[in-house]
């Protein structure tokens, strides 16, 4: 399908972008790398009247890390830069793993973490690791700024709690706590670079040998990347053991609400939720014990 007709703007400041967004009403669409927006337009799923590109806004491009404030990933920082950033490689390996398993080199060169989040696919690979690391999004609008936890960000497939007129300017992740470990495991039923059929993020913090805080997020098994709250509760206070891993996997599989689609059946997705939760929890314990 051919692309629809739209007006194109490449503002240089966030303020300019916000004004354009306000001026062009509901039909306006913000775009960063374009890898999702373009594909949706090509498939006729999105017909914006105006595209506002963020690529020329200098301040949105950066990636910053410091041990106190944590990590900030600008809205237009490419996935490739994010995955190769030395601090991210060192402190946020689960995010790196998520990005490296996504798409191909070109899409990683063009696409952004912010775009992956805003696209709000249930299978978005960066969502589970970011959510278990208590990631937040910074949203700007003409009324000001707000910060929203990623836990409250997704509403449904392709739908978020952003209000029209808002632009996601960056993603923030707190610095990793001592004795914390994060893992992201994903699987596709087929070979190659593929959209995840299931993805599981686990983040835990240890007190001694026991888990004092656990966050578990399941991707592609519900309309949004979902917290497995019961599984988290189950893990709470427990030590690493085969028995626990098995129980956690089973509980997560019960919590999952997968559907069957052309990529995988609901029943396989449920089984994989158990397997990946087990594996991710094991790796998270392992990483936490080393920090």
């Amino acid at each position, binding site marked *: 399908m051919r692309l629809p007709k739209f007006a*194109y703007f490449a503002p240089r400041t966030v303020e300019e972008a916000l004004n354009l967004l306000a001026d062009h009403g509901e039909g306006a669409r913000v775009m960063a790398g*374009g890898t999702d927006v373009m594909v949706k337009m*090509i498939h006729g799923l999105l017909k914006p009247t105006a595209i506002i590109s963020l690529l020329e806004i200098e301040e949105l491009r950066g990636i910053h890390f410091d041990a106190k404030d944590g990590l900030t990933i600008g809205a237009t920082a490419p996935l490739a830069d994010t995955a190769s950033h030395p601090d991210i490689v060192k402190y946020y390996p689960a995010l790196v793993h998520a990005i490296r398993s996504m798409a*191909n*080199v*070109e*899409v990683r*060169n063009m696409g952004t973490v912010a775009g992956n989040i805003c696209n709000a696919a249930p299978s978005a690979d960066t969502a589970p690791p970011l959510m278990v690391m208590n990631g937040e999004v910074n949203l700007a609008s003409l009324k000001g700024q707000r910060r929203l936890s990623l836990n409250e960000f997704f509403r449904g497939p392709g739908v978020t709690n952003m209000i029209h007129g808002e632009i996601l300017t960056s993603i923030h992740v707190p610095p990793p706590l001592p004795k914390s470990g994060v893992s992201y495991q994903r699987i596709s039923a087929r070979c*190659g670079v593929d959209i995840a059929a299931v993805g599981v993020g686990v983040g835990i913090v240890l007190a001694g040998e026991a888990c004092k805080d656990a966050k578990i997020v399941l991707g592609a098994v519900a309309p949004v990347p979902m917290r497995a709250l019961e599984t988290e509760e189950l893990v709470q206070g427990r030590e690493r053991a085969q028995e626990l891993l098995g129980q956690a996997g089973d509980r997560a599989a019960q919590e999952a609400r997968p559907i069957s689609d052309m990529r995988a059946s609901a029943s396989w997705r449920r089984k994989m939720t158990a397997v990946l939760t087990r594996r991710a929890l094991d790796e998270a314990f392992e990483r936490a014990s080393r920090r």
Partner: protein
Amino acid sequence: MKHQIRFTVNGDEYVVAVDPRRTLNEVLRDDLNLTGTKLGCGTGDCGACTVIVEDRTVSSCLTLAVSVNGKAVRTVEGLAPSGEELHPIQEAFVKTGAIQCGFCTSGMEMAAAHLLSRNPSPGEEEIRAGLSGHLCRCTGYNQIVEAVSVAAEAMRNSKTEEVKG
């Protein structure tokens, strides 16, 4: 409304008036007659349309032409130094049998150029990862992987033209 964009392709400057919905792929192929860049799927899934914008490979089918205003684009036509000589990557593709139908070739070569600009001595796994997402239906990839490795060695040895990527 058309936008006037100014950009370079393989060092040549072009000024083109484009509708915002034109992709870089269309402008290269239809307006500039640079048809070495192919269109295999139109959705960024096959790699045949890969070009280098500034310092990195992109899918030209997912890149709006308006977005390359002021930028430097490199296509397969910009690899060879002259009509008589080939770029070491092209040379290696020819020599190793990495080319059958040839439709994926320019995308593969651009991916190889990008990879080698960042990693002059990639191992086999790194090459495969660097080409992943580039589909080929003829070769089974093995000879393409070999070509990239042969090219890397040739480029390391001669240090002729620096791939600016």
